[in-house]
Structures are given as C-alpha cells and as structure tokens.
C-alpha cells in the first residue's frame, strides 16, 4: 500500500506540528507521522510553565503550548498518523520513499520533501561511564518525568540527581513536591548548566544543595539502588582521589545531556555536524540531501520551545516550496569561541528573506561581540551580554547584508570576562 504527499513530517511534537502548519500554509499537501498514541511530543510531560513567553507573550505549561499547535493542525485538517513508526527511508529519482509500520501494516509514502522533527534522546549513565552494579532505580530525568507526570508514580523516594541542566533542576522540584527527597544535585562543571531562575525556583526554594565540580562515579545495590559514590573533579573533570563520598539513596536521576535523534538521517547519508550531533543545514534548514529538512531538537538541542517553533516554520515553509534551482552552498567559517553555530551553510542562490542563526558560546563570558565578515569585510556586529553555553543565542541577519557576497562568510565571536 502506498501513497503520496508533498511534505512528510516525522514527529508531532512542537517542531513537527509547527513545520506542518507552515508547510500547509505555503500550499503543500502535508502528512504527519507520530510514533506515540497522541501528538504533543515531549511537551505532554513538561507540565511546568515558562513556555511561550516569546512566541505568545504568555507563560504556558508544555501541554498548553502543544495544544496551541495541535489546534492549528486540526483547523487545517492536516492528518496526524499516530502509532506510526518510520522503519526505512530511501531517496530515488528526486523523491523520498518512506516505509512506515503501524497497526494496519506496512506502507510506503512517496514525498517530495521530508522534515525530520523527531527530537532527541537522553544521554545514559553508561555513556558517561558510571560504574558499579545495575540495580533498579537508575533512570534519566525524562523517564522519571514520564513516570511522575504521565502515570502518577514516583520511581524514587530519596535520590541523587546528576546534572544541573534545566531538566534535572525541574525534576528536583517536581520530585520534592510529590514527597520524594532529593539529597542533592551534582554537576561536573564548575558552573550550573541550567538557567539561574531554575536554580532559584527549583533548588533554593526547596533547600536542595547544589554541588559543583562533582560527579557520580559508582552505583551500589544489588536489586535496587542502595547508594551512589560521588567525588569532586578537577579542571580536567577527573575525579580527585580522597574526595569520594558514599550517599545512601534509592535512586539516581541522570540529567547529563540530550542527543539529537538522527539515525534515520544518517541512514540516507546526511552530513552530521559533530558539534551539534545534528545535520548540517543551510538557512532554509535543508540538509546536505536535497529535500530533506531538519528542525527542532533533532537539529540541535534548544532551550526554548519558542525557537523550536521558529525554526520549524522556516523548515516547513521551505520544504513546501518547489525549487528546481541547484543550491550554491557556502560553508560558514566560525571562530573557536563557538560551541556550535546553526545553520552551518548558506545557499547563496536563495537569499530571499532575513536569516536566523542560533549559536552557543564555548564557555561563559560576561560580554561577547559577534562579528560577521563577508568577502573579508565586517558586514555586521552585535554585542551579547552574559554569554553562557547553557543559553542558546539567536541573531537575525537582514537579507541585503548577505545578498551580494560571493566569497567566504565568517562568524567571529570574541568574549571578555
């Protein structure tokens, strides 16, 4: 069984939903594929508020933000195929052939473009080489969040949280509110990974200690976690002998990073940027494979869902356009101070509107100056206050700034403090 559409959107989380709406509004026949039983993606379990301040001027909870976009999709009668999973994809003669499996069987969808909006997965304790035994009670923060918010169960009663990223901080508060006790939050870096407001409202409010420059080395316990061993680390993040401490607890919650989910993209030969773990894209968010777009957390890990929606709209709009023109891709050069910069390429043939770049600095700084050079000249400059790798930055560049260039484009970030 097979059928056709113009744009196939994989994922009905905030990225996929926004991309589908934008693609539809640009005139494409759109189909959304979602592996869960209902749309909303990770936002369904993010019941805390803070979403939509930029996009809607309101402080919404995750499910509310998702519902705004589900409403938009429903209003346009765009089909969301739930409990449907992509098993295989191939590009042939300029079209994408995507194999889907669902409760009705195997199907093939032929589409002109594909938007991969499948989000990311969590880094595991094994990936950071936590040692010891493998008892019940070790879980990533997202899985803990699912158990608590979607099912109403506490997977831990007294835990240690490793990682001070926002998800770890949010779970510290959530678990405490539900009656569990968080012995402490341990962070390997010398500074917290999450937003200062989350340190305040998730840790300080509940008197949960934050231990910087610490990590969890081992887990003990045969069947259920009985304790974890923490240690202080040095500047190279190596454990310092003699600082080991055993903390009795029944759970270890890990918030040690997110990894964009791109196995499907890699299977059709897309170029991946190792600094984002997401695809290399041009300003339309098209990847190195023509017609294959990426947006949301699958492209790079965002802090704010508002920017996920923004990037998704760019991808959706562009995926719907039929362009016969071959791309002229210029790879952007960037200075060392960037952790990453997205997009990584500019299609010089299609500079049709303002361009949005997202970046993270490599390290924290009080102030930073971003300079953009084209053909050797400085063409734009912007100052950023208080740079922090934990906070993604955004810069808009007007169309005419880049339009008439024919040489190298370079982004330079200098920091102070």
């Amino acid at each position, binding site marked *: 069984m097979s059928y056709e559409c113009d744009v196939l959107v994989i994922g009905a989380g905030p990225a996929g939903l926004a991309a589908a709406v934008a693609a539809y509004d640009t005139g494409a026949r759109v189909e959304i594929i979602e*592996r869960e039983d209902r749309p909303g993606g990770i936002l369904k379990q993010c019941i805390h508020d803070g979403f939509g301040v930029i996009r809607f001027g309101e402080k919404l909870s995750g499910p509310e933000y998702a519902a705004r976009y589900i409403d938009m999709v429903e209003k346009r009668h765009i089909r969301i195929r739930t*409990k449907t*999973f992509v*098993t295989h994809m191939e590009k042939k003669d300029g079209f994408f052939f995507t*194999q889907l*499996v*669902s*409760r*009705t*069987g*195997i199907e093939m969808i032929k589409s002109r473009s594909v938007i991969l909006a499948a989000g990311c*997965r*969590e880094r*595991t304790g*094994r*990936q950071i*080489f936590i*040692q*010891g*035994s*493998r*008892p*019940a009670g070790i*879980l*990533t923060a*997202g*899985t803990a969040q*699912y*158990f*608590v918010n*979607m*099912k*109403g*169960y*506490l*997977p*831990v*009663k007294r835990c240690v949280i490793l990682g001070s990223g926002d998800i770890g901080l949010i779970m510290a508060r959530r678990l405490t509110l*539900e*009656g*569990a006790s968080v012995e402490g939050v341990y962070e390997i870096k010398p500074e917290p990974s999450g937003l200062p407001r989350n340190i305040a409202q998730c840790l300080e409010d509940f008197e949960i200690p934050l231990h910087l420059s610490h990590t969890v080395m*081992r887990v*003990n316990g045969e*069947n*259920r976690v009985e304790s974890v061993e923490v240690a202080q680390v040095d500047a190279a993040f190596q454990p310092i002998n003699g600082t080991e401490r055993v903390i009795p607890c*029944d*759970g270890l919650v890990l918030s040690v990073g997110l990894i964009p989910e791109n*196995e499907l993209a*890699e299977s059709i030969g897309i170029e991946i940027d190792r600094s984002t773990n997401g695809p290399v894209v041009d300003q339309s968010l098209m990847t190195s494979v023509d017609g294959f777009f990426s947006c949301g957390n699958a492209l790079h890990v965002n802090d704010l869902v508002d920017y996920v929606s923004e990037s998704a709209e760019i991808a959706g709009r562009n995926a719907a356009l039929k362009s016969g023109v071959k791309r002229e891709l210029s790879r952007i050069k960037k200075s060392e101070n960037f952790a990453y910069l997205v997009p990584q390429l500019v299609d010089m043939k299609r500079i049709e509107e303002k361009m949005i770049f997202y970046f993270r600095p490599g390290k924290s700084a009080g102030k930073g100056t971003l300079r953009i050079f084209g053909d050797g000249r400085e063409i734009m400059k912007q100052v950023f206050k208080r740079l922090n790798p934990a906070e993604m930055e955004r810069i808009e560049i007007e169309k005419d700034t880049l339009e008439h260039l024919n040489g190298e484009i370079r982004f330079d970030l200098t920091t102070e403090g």
Partner: protein
Amino acid sequence: MSGQYGQKVICSQKGSSILLEGNVAEWTDVVAAGKMAAEIKGIKGVINKIECASVKKKRKAGGELTENVLKDRRVDVLIIGGGIIGCSIARELSKWDLDICLVEKEPDLAMHASSRNDGMIHPGLVPSPGSMKAKYNAKGNGMYETLSRELDFEYKRVGSLLLFDNRWLAPAYPILASRAEKNGVPSTEFLTGKKLKRFVNSKDAPSLNKSLESKWAVYIPSTGIVSPYKTTIAVCENAILNGTRLFLNTEVLSFERENDTIISCKTTKGDIHAKIIINCAGTASDEVAELAGDRFFTIHPRKGTILMIDRKRGHLTNTVLSMPNIIGKKDTKGGGIVPTVEGNLLVGPDAEEQPYKEDYSTSMCHIDAIVNQHFRLLEGIGKKDIITYFAGTRASTYLEDFIVEWSDTISNLFHVAGIQSPGLASAPAIAEDVSEKVVSKLKRMKDVREKVNWQATRKGIPRLAQMDPEQRSVYIIKRPDYGEIVCRCEEISKGEIRDALHSPIPVKTVDGVKRRVRAGMGRCQGGFCKPLVVEIIAEELQMDPLDITKKGRDSYILMRDVAVVENEKADSREEGDGNVV
C-alpha cells in the same frame, strides 16, 4: 608450598583431590596457592578452603522454605541450574519417557554466566587436546546449525580471525593446525602476505585496521555466534514442551543421604525426591557438591567485563577478531571483537581473579583496559560507540577444565561443573553425553523408553524488524499489536512483548522481557520504552505497576503512587517475591 607461604597454608590429600586450608592476606594469594596445587600431576581436583581476611562474606547462607510447591514430588531426574548446561541436558533427557524437573534459584533462566558472555560458539582450537573441554567443544560447535533451525534461535557462522604480529611465531601454525585437528575442528587456514591482504579487504573484516602490523593470521571458518540467553530460553522452552517441569525461584538448601544415595533434596520451594541428581549449578556447583558431601573441587570465579558497541558500528567487522598476545596458556586474558546476531559488536572479555561469585559490578579500569587492547583492531570505532557494558564470572575450577562425570562417592549424583569457556559451544555435546550416561544408569533402575512423540522443534517469538515488508505485513494484519512499535531503538513491537509475557517460561520482569525480545537493549537503554514495557506487563499480567521489578526480588521499578503521602500509610506494595511457578 609451605615454603612459599610459611605457616599460613596447609596442604593435604582428600580422596583424590588436594585440600588447601589456612589463612592468607589477599585473594590473589588464595588463587595462586590453588593454581600451584593444580600443577600436581594426577590429582582429581583442588579443594581450596584457604581463608582470606580481605574477603567480605556476601552471599547469604542457606535460605528457608518460602512456599511448598514441590510437595515431596518424586521424579526421575532433578537438574540443578537453569543455565545453558542445565537446559541443554533437560532437552536431551526429554527425548525419553522420564519425569524431569529443573530447578533454578533465580526468577528467570540464564541470569548468570549464560547471559554474561559474548555469545561466541568457539571452534575448539584453544583447549588442550585430551582435556574435557577439547572433548566437547568442536563437537558441540558442529551441532549448532541444526539446533538453531530446530529451536528457532538466531545463529550465524561468522568465522574467526586470529591475528599475530610476531613473524617468528609463524612456524607455530602447524602446531595450531595439529591441535585443531586433534580437537576435531573442521578446518583452519593460514593467512599471510597477499592472502591476508585479500582477506582483510574482503567483506568479512572491512574495517580491520590497515595500519596493524599483523604478519600472519589464522582463519577458522567454524566459529559461530548466538544470543546466549535467547538460546538458553529456546532450549528450555523445547524441554518444557516435551514435558520437563521448570521451577524458578527454587534454591537447593540441603540433601538427605542414605549411605551412598541421595534420597531427598530440600529446596526453598519444598522437598523433592529424584532417582538421579545432576549438578549444573555454575559458580555454585562446588557449593552443591559440598551440600552432598562430595566436594572435590572449588570454583574460583574469574570475572570478565564486556563492552557493547552501537549497532551502527556493527558493519565494521563480520567475523570474530582477536590478536592473542600469548598462545597456549590456560587462562589467557584473550578476548576480542565479536559481532552479535542482532548487529552489535561485543568487545572483551578480560579476566580478573576476584572472590565474589555474583559480583557483576563494573569498574572503569577494566573498560579502559579492554578499549586499549582491542579497539586498535578496527578503524572507525571509538569510546563514544559504547552503549553499555556488563560483567560476568566464569565458573573456573583450579584445574581449569570441565567436570562431566558421576560422583565418586554418591551413586546417583552427576556433576557437570566448572563449565567456563567454551561452555556455550560445548553445551549440546555435553548434554548428549550426560543424557546417555544418565539414561544408561536409569535403565538399570526402571524401564526407560524413548518418547514416542518427542518434538524436536520449537517456535520462537517472531522478530518483526528482521522480516521483509511483505511477511511483516502479514503478521501485522493478523495481529495489529505487531505493528505498534514500543522500543524504537530496536524496533520491537507490542505484540512481541506480549508474546514474551505469555511464553512457556513465566516472566514478569522488565529484564526478562528484555532478554527475550531486546526491548531496552538499544542506544537509549530503555529511556523511552521502560515505562511502556512496565505498562504492558501490568496490563497483560493484571499486575499493579508497583509490583513490577527489573529483575525479581525487590528490584522494584516504582516506589509509590503520587497520591500516597509517605507518613500517611505504609507502602502500598504487597510483601513477598514475584515469580511463583
């Protein structure tokens, strides 16, 4: 010996074995003493009872009756241990009209050595000719092709490539070839120069590190790979299909003897009376022998760590790769890179003498050692490709060989002990031999006939992700659950998980499901699917999610309902353990 250790170790003879007693400071000394004693020619075994101050007593002594399920059952054969050995023997014996009972102390089969190895079906090159290992290895290897078809488990004949970088050792090849021949290995191939280059560039080892200065190599075509726990389960399911009774959560506590016969066996699930008792208790086989008053050997658990590599690097090699440092030693550190039937790579194991039989905790130094030793064999593999790691302990005796024989002192006790590598490969051959001997003895006690309607085959849980689209569609149309993907990393459907929960061997744990259908073994290690698997278990088995465990006993996944406040009432969970058969 008293020279080396002063007054601390006393050496005496017990039966045909050497008995060591005394006190030393470190475990390595205990093992060293045992190995020294093992060098003495002609002894049957080493009973090493040397005490060591630094060893903490971990394993709880004995246990007690939890529920009388066995109720003085009378059977022909009692098999102690539900690993690959015990299950294989059960299947062989099930070909006869016999009452067979297999007891396993854990909540599931294959929870120890049988799931903690690299799945390699060794060709038979390594064991010393004339040893028990050599007797069974190649023979067992040759039986896997048929077994895998009959029992519907995945098996691949991938061959193995042993790389050597000492040119001066090349003349040793004829010795290797001769040993292989003596051990019954069908063929080996000597590769050097152009031949080696051609092999290296072939599809078998596409990413073998070209910069490795390997001067010669031996290729052994008969090496195979299986999923060891899936195989164990497949073998046992067939045994059960053919009448074997399996009792999980059943631990042997003591034996009652009358002269030289065991007349009764007390377990945590009641008493059982068997005509023949077969001891396949893995690292606890010496303890079972001790309970019977027939301990003539001691297990010193040698731990090994194994790394699992992401499936997306699985294409780097299609054959087993290793670069041995030394040939011929009894307990080489060995190991290598082994592809799995599911497309991952396993790297290791290493070897560490340590005192704890069931301590499977890992340590960074072992992981680093394995990375340093083996990663250089391949191009394009790195530490970031490691998705998980685990450890196991080998049931090694001091003589470092299999024990497959009747007890010298007890007429109805058969020991199948000390089964370390190549135990998995040898299992079918061991089982055949044990069955022949046991049936022969039983025939002298009663009339024993072959089972008329013995079923050789067993159907496993379908692996939808491996099917072609047409076949997969057929399955899904018949049962839509097969089209609902739960584990996205490994593409495992709800239907397969439900099949696991309704399979012949009752499993109610998250790990039990994982062992059967792989859900949770992918790169996200259950991050997405664990809650869904818990929900499916709760729904299928009518269980309260709070009672669901990771691996039995008190390994509960969930601690309490959010609606309950801690000081309001006690845990809503029921007391008692999970699996009861």
